[in-house]
């Protein structure tokens, strides 16, 4: 099997689309983690009836007709998430060239190459 070291004259610089995609994927995961950190704990501590507490209907707090825990814990994060999504899509994400399509190469040749590779492996 070939080693991982670059051959003489081989490309050594990472593809910018790969680097941009990876950076964007990491930011996506961070946004997911932040939304989890806001939504679930907030709803749990303000919207769940904890052991020993009795719920009284007249004490329910609402905002725009929603229970306040659902408003601040879900509706507001939803609006914020849409704003962050707009920023991510229109500002942060790089407008990369995805390249040309390399389909239609001789499939028989390609399969022979892959089979040889499998045997070698």
């Amino acid at each position, binding site marked *: 099997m070939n*080693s991982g070291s670059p051959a003489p004259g081989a490309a050594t610089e990472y593809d910018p689309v790969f680097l941009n995609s990876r950076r964007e994927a990491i930011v996506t995961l961070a946004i997911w983690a932040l939304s989890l950190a806001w*939504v*679930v704990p907030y709803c749990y501590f303000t919207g769940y009836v904890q052991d020993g507490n009795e719920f009284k209907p007249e004490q329910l707090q609402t905002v725009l007709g929603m229970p306040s825990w*659902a408003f601040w814990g879900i509706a507001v994060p939803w609006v914020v998430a849409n704003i962050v999504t707009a920023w991510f899509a229109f500002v942060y994400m790089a*407008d*990369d060239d995805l390249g040309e*399509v*390399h389909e239609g190469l001789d499939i028989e040749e390609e399969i022979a190459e892959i089979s040889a590779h499998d045997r070698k492996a």
Partner: protein
Amino acid sequence: MTCPPASLLPLFAQTTSGSNGALITFLVYTAAVFVIAWYSNRLQQKKESFLSEYFLGSRSLGTWAFALTFAATSASGGTFTGFPSLVYAHGWSVALWISSYLVVPICGLGLLAKRINQVARIGGSITVPDVFRDRFQSARFGLLATLLIVFFMTFNLVAQFKAGAEILRTLLQDVGIFQWARAELARFDATQLHLFAARDIEPGYVICLLAFAAAVIVYTTYGGFHAVVWTDVMQGLVMVMGVLIMLPLALYQVGGLESATREMAKMTPPRVIDARLSLETASDSAYPIPTGTWLTLPPQEGSELPRLLRVSRQRTIPAGQTSVDNVPLLELTTPSEIERQLSRLAVPVEELNGPLTVEVTRTLDYRYGKDQPGVYVTGPGPQAPNRSLSPEEQPASSGFLPLSLAISFFFMWAISGAGQPSNMVRQMAFNSTTTLRRSIFTVAIYFSLIYFPIVLIFCCARVLLPGMDEESDRIMPEMAVFLTSAVNQPWLAGVLIAAPFAAVMSTVDSFLLMISSAIVRDFYQRNINPEVSESRIKLMSYAVTFVVGAGAMFAAVSPPRFLQDIIVYTGSGLASCFLIPMVVTLYWPRVTLAGAMAGMLGGFLSHLSLYVIGYVHYSEFRALKPLGIDPIIWGLATSLLLTLAVTPLTPQPPRKLIERYFMKQAPRKASVTT
């Protein structure tokens, strides 16, 4: 459709406008998807590569097509049947259950889309197994991915066909021509076929299955990927339109969201009752007691309000007999709800039972939330008992959505959605990064207009249509008919109840094409006959799509038990198998073939083993959930750990592959350019 015989015309006339709306909607729908399929087929004739066009739309999707096909495929039939049903049954806590949809667009398209599209272009990949095969230059890996896709999606396809047929049956149940056809088929079966009654298969279900399957199989087979995408666009628009019409109507009917939430705050869960219903004297003919019949009992001690009960499933007192046992009833327990419903019924309480006498034979209390006001506006939500168990056998419940499951679902919707091959293949089909960027935002707005409003609409339904807890799967069409009748526009019901139908159709067509592409492209062309001619592959693509669809339809006539559980199993199983291997395929140059394959097999086996152990342990199709955590998370964790452990133990991947997929290089000469 041909004109009905004259003897049938009264049947048309007898149906309500809403029911006719459903029939007309279905016919218009079918006509529209056939037009789209015809146009897509014409597109195929003009393209150089049939396979790329048939299975991937020549990677030419623009913003609307890409965004709406992604959104419509994600929103399966469950979005308009199961999800509203959950909101109705558990109240506001379902908002937390679905809340991670606020980041589904960015996660679903931000994690993998750009890179998978680029890698598929580099390798010339048309399908998801193609991506693995080309990236690692391994036919074995491609074959493994193909087998897993066919395995999971075949089960899921059968289940989706069943869901489509059930939704259609709900839509058409009051239509005269449908009732006539059902009765005729039942008669034909009883005298000639002897197929359905013996197997407890309802003839109406078979008719709907045939109609649904015929429409989907024909347009998908004939039109290929473009037909699937453009029908998705149409179906996506119908879904959002349905929700946006229902929301103001629901809020208007209930007197505003504040009023609905305040009412829900007072509500306590219903009582689950079995009763004997009796007539004073036996009737000459059978006496049906339809679902939705309201009955009453004298007030309980200390109360002035009569008890109010609703029949949950139709029962019939046979001819010549005076009673029927075990009639399932639900008793309302909230005084304001009873008063409101009594005033709506517009029948004096003493006349409500008609000739029937009600005798309660068994009462079951809710497993969580009994006599607790507020359980519909706080978490955890109420949990109904299991009618098939005695009161002593009811398992304990901590309510709907304990904290561990809330976290699991936040993970599941957002992250595992990205791991679905049906989403991945769409991410290979958009034409540029600009399309991707616009689509992320479009899907975000689209999901915002669908998911949160559904919570609001079906919280209103809880107030407007009480007592439907045991048939809450039908709450969407019931609510559509109720809302449109209330504003005297019953024709609108047909448009509204098309939404769930559109949702399930847009999922089925994608799955159908995924399976046929796996068989034709990944299995046949790449492993059996690489020299296959273009005309033969074209014929095979049509034939396989048709045969797979027809096979799934026949399997759905008498579907296996535990079908709904199988849907959950296949969705989470696909994510466990594909997400981590795809992430490392795209983002980790060092990953080796052995590492990625170990991740895929590890995800599959660990997820499967939790279901097998659960089946042995509980004697039903139910997964074991160690620490209360869903199997998908265990599957993904195993997949990740195995990939990380095996990769360093195996030699570095070939430098040639790293250069091809990860290094900056001069563009290669392409034979096909989009």
